[in-house]
């Protein structure tokens, strides 16, 4: 699992992700307390996430739980969308 991929064009910010599309967290910008909280709730590099509802705040599904997150935090999370029912690089199957 690498988090230094030079594939910036395939990375999007979490709050720009299309709803109901699953993605894998690739990079987190600017670490702080709030980010640590986000990570301990499951949003960390390598995890599979899905945007449930756009807006500010927005709703993200990670594991079996839904999290409400401020858009300005989601802005600092870079994700790689999984296209066409792919199998995510960490081996998790993506239900579409």
């Amino acid at each position, binding site marked *: 699992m690498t988090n230094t991929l030079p594939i910036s064009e395939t990375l999007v910010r979490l709050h720009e992700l299309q709803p109901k599309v699953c993605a894998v967290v690739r990079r987190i910008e600017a670490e702080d*307390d709030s980010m640590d909280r986000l990570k301990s709730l499951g949003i960390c590099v390598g995890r599979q996430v899905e945007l449930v509802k756009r807006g500010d*705040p927005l709703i993200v599904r990670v594991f079996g739980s839904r999290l409400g997150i401020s858009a300005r935090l989601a802005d600092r999370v870079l994700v790689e969308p999984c296209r066409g029912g792919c199998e995510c690089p960490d081996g998790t199957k993506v239900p579409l």
Partner: protein
Amino acid sequence: MIAGPPSTSLRERDGRRSKSERFTLVLAGNPNAGKTTLFNALTGLRAKTANFPGTTIECKIGRANLDGQQIMVVDLPGLYSLDSSSPEEQVAAQAVRGRLSDHSKADAVLLIVDATNLERNLFLVSQILELQIPTLVALNMIDMAEEHGLQIDPAKLQLELGCPVVPISARYGIGLDKLQHEIARLAATATEPVGFVPPKPACTGCSGCPFQARYAWTEDVSSRCVAHAYETRGRRTENIDQVLTHPVVGVAVFFAVMFGVFFLIFQVAKIPMNLIDGFFAYTAAFAARHLPEGLWSSLLVNGVIRGVGGILVFLPQIGILFFFLSLIEDTGYFARAAFVMDRLMRRIGLPGKAFVPLLSAHACALPAIMSTRVIEDRRDRLVTILVAPLMTCSARIPVYTMLIALLFARSPIKASLTFTGAYAVGVMAALVMAWVFRHTILPGESKPLVLELPHYRLPSLRTATLQMLDRASVFIRSAGTTILCISVGLWFLASFPRVKAPPPTASADTRVAAARDQLEHSIAGRLGHSLEPVLKPLGFDWQIGIGVITSFAAREVIVSTLAVVYGVGSDVAEQHPNSLYDTLRDAQRSNGKPVFNTANCFSLLVFYILAAQCLPTQAVTRRETGTWKWPLLQIAYMTGLAYFAAFVVFQTLRHFGFA
């Protein structure tokens, strides 16, 4: 395997534990995993709330008698990770590590895990197992997991974790016998988990996000222990959320829910409050009749009995608010309310969760301040506590009623507009002051929202009832003494130095006149006189000055004080308020001008909207913030604000000829 200092000390203690020394079990787990329900199921009514030493963070301590062993159970604040930065989670993490306080240590951890969300919950499990402390895992909400098609193999999980795993449903009592049995066994043997291999980062060379390695492990374990036959987890919740998290509909629903709760506090609480009031008035009258007239009877009747009544009269509002807040919280709805209100509240620098306390403050500031505990960030919470008393509480209503009766006796429309305006001024002042505090003494934006939206569940009446009883007892224990002291203190100010009491045979008029003389010559009366130069620019004379002082016990006291100083008698004023209003309207100064005019009535109204005339509020603020600094600031800024606003109102109106 790491054997840290905490486990060493635990091991040392184990052999030497005497029979009298109780086995201490700390209850830890993610928020929303059902910790409180399990705690209540294990300990029932035998629990009490205490603060962690040196903090304002609460924990519940209860006793359980399992298989003949006395076990102390400590309910910790919910936590997601042992390395969190929030004070609540840090305290919980410390307790899990074995340092419960300076005097007591945790002997074992009962770790409660949400079976419907095993991957995420296992994160904390792995951290705690690494500490090598005797641990027992309760796999809660197993019924809900099965309902959603998740088949968890507890035996496999037990092998993976190396500690006992008991599937339970705390809400429906499933598996509790087995859990109690396991706790008793753990207390008897205190065995540490065996065979648990802590997750290691995948690549040893990289700086390695510690979260990443742990989550890889949790996913691994859960994929081995959970079979997803057909997964419907969260589908119903998501459908409900379509509505409840909608930016417009969600806000509307939230207002409707809060209006309902607010209405209940307001209307339903009235009945027990009137009963309490009536009971204490009766007791006071009974005592006054049967005790020889004099100083001690006055202290007992006007200081102590009124004081105790003044404490208990808050209980219905506190009880009702916390009962319903607990029910709503239990369903999982409050997370949605905080979610939809977050964007609106952020504009004044407060988080969405601050909305519930601010709205409840319209009934009474005391329970509102007590309910700010839902706000995680300390600065966010302090701002909310500071501004909550600006909302129009029910104690202000008698004052508003009196002043508005003086202002617009013959125009119900103007009267209701003024009433509404008074509420609006309170709300506006709170919002402006929140903004001001955010840009001065408590700077910074509020913490960005990170909030779990749990699955919806049916609430538990048992949890709500226990929560209501708990809050009521916390209030009496922590603020009761202070409120009683305030009541006795104010009685002292209004009763000393003594003037000669009328003989018991004196007529009613003589008694009323004597009561007025006593108040005028008391310390409070003299203070009122000496405050007159300060209050003059607001249009208040010394009689109102006395009212301002005595109403520090509670705002509505100014009404009975004015009744005494204007010679109506407090009993008459209570039974026939109109006779008081008439007397006040007809009251004249020595120069023949009426005492109450448009300008000073408005100025007094504005003063009572904004001023901190309620010392019990400060007593509760002291308890919730842990220092006297914040209640003193609260009283100072509110008095300053009230003085300034009343000054502007009076001078402006006088300038336009309303005085």
